[in-house]
């Protein structure tokens, strides 16, 4: 029974391509700034307020790996893509309930559990499109600048980003089955991912409050570790996956029991 998965996948293609295009454009602008960054990396690191350095996790800005990992990935991936996935998944259920599409869907011999799982599974489309698109943009961008990025490391950082994005999906889907309004669910999901990103960055700066950051998903995905230090944190990815599964399970249980 994959009719819903199929239908939802088709629906997500358009927005995925649009997002990839926008992120590619943004990456291009950022790449354009790289030569200047690299030359004056020390100066930039000094000139930036420590708050911002902490937020982005700037490291080794003078190398293309450091630049991509700490500037481009931090902003585009952890913040923008995270917010996009949370936003999209926050609309998955509540929108269909509000527009009464869910009435028709559930008049078919399909369980509510299956509806949630198929809808979330359809997010493979943006995951693949955005990842593939960005991989191309990064490789092309680096070669245009006369630099090169290790394709294996790049592949790894994209792969390890998936559990992080899935946690954002999990946040969205839980909101989607609990909140009654589409806008509220989506705005809450966006806001929550942004705040978690902010809390992670800010808590990093003060050792007394660093523990707070352990409750943020971005703490478990550090692009600089992969690109600059070639350290693959499988354990952290496992934690993120587990959190995603818990959130998904929670959403399924809530949706199966509620009135629509």
């Amino acid at each position, binding site marked *: *029974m*994959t*009719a*819903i998965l*199929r*239908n939802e996948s088709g*629906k997500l293609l358009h927005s995925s391509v649009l997002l990839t295009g926008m992120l590619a454009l943004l990456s291009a602008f950022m790449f354009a700034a790289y030569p200047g960054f690299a030359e004056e990396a020390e100066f930039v690191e000094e000139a930036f307020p420590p708050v911002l350095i902490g937020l982005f996790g700037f490291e080794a800005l003078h190398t293309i790996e450091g630049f991509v990992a700490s500037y481009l990935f931090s902003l585009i991936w952890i913040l923008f893509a995270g917010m996009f996935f949370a936003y999209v998944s926050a609309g998955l259920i509540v929108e*269909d309930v509000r*527009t*009464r*599409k*869910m*009435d*028709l869907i*559930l*008049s*078919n*011999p*399909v*369980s*509510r559990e299956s509806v949630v799982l198929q809808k979330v599974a359809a997010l493979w489309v943006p995951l693949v499109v955005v990842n593939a698109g960005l991989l191309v943009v990064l490789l092309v961008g680096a070669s245009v600048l006369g630099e090169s990025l290790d394709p294996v490391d790049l592949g790894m950082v994209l792969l390890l980003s998936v559990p992080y994005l899935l946690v954002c999906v999990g946040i969205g889907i839980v909101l989607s089955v609990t909140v009654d309004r589409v806008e509220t669910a989506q705005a809450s999901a966006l806001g929550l991912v942004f705040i978690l990103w902010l809390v992670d960055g800010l808590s990093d700066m003060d050792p007394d409050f660093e523990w707070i950051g352990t409750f943020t998903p971005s703490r478990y995905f550090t692009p600089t570790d992969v690109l600059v230090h070639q350290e693959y944190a499988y354990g952290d990815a496992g934690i993120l996956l587990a959190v995603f599964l818990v959130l998904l399970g929670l959403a399924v249980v809530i949706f*199966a029991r509620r*009135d*629509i």
Partner: protein
Amino acid sequence: MAPIEIEDLTKRYGDLAANDAVVFDVERGEIFGYLGPNGAGKTTTIRLLLGLIKPTAGTATVLGADIRDRRALTGVKTNIGYLPDTLGFEERLTGTQVLDHFARMRGDERRAELLDLFRPPLEKPVETYSSGNKRMLGIVQAFMHDPDLVIMDEPTSGLDPLKQDRLHQFLEAERDAGTTIFLSSHVLSEVQRVCDRVGIIRAGKLIALENIDDLLTQSGKNVWVHLEEPVENARFLTDDMIDVEVTGATIQFTYTGDVKTLLAHLVQFEIVDADIGDPQLDDIFKHYYGDEGETDATNEDATREDTTAEVE
């Protein structure tokens, strides 16, 4: 076992009882009309039957599956067709794509045959559809998997009279072929035209459950008499005449007694013209609804209340 068996079905939202201990069965191979004004609780019952909302108390079985048993209910949905009042289609898809989508979940062996009768513009996206076209697409998807039970919420809303007629004929043919049809409506003539039995719901409570024919018989005959010249009311009127309106030599009333007695009574007068017919369900409907909300009884209301007593 009847396709739909409803036992004390209750759904409360806070203090408001959208359905209050509703009891009735829908028998195999009948068209059952669920009648009531907007907000009476018709859609609530339907959404309870489909498991979209959970009952506060009581229960129902649909094709043998208890609505509180989600797994069993999901299982029997292969044999249920549903036409909701608000049609939530995937608007960016074309009619064909919408039907393909539902066909993947429950089959479409009767699709071509239905599309001969009801013809939405299949190649266009649903977002460009008129409400009538959407309704037709809804009818096709509700019947295309040849279900045993079809639940329809306000099935003719948005359809022009010609298509309404086509739907009514189609429903009768389906009923004769053994399909059970449960339809809700606030359109009285529709229920009168097509339904075998009717349940009337008001403010969440089922207030009548009758065969259409019995309902019409019980509520007397509509009589219109034109006399040669005006006669004294006291001489003409009997206790069996209610809702009387006298305009000169023309008298209109509802007759609750035996028709033979009425005819015997009428021949005593010089009659130019007369007409005796079934009352519209509309009138009966008013009897059930008329006394609520208009408690400061006017003369008309007082008459209605008399009639309600007669009917009940």
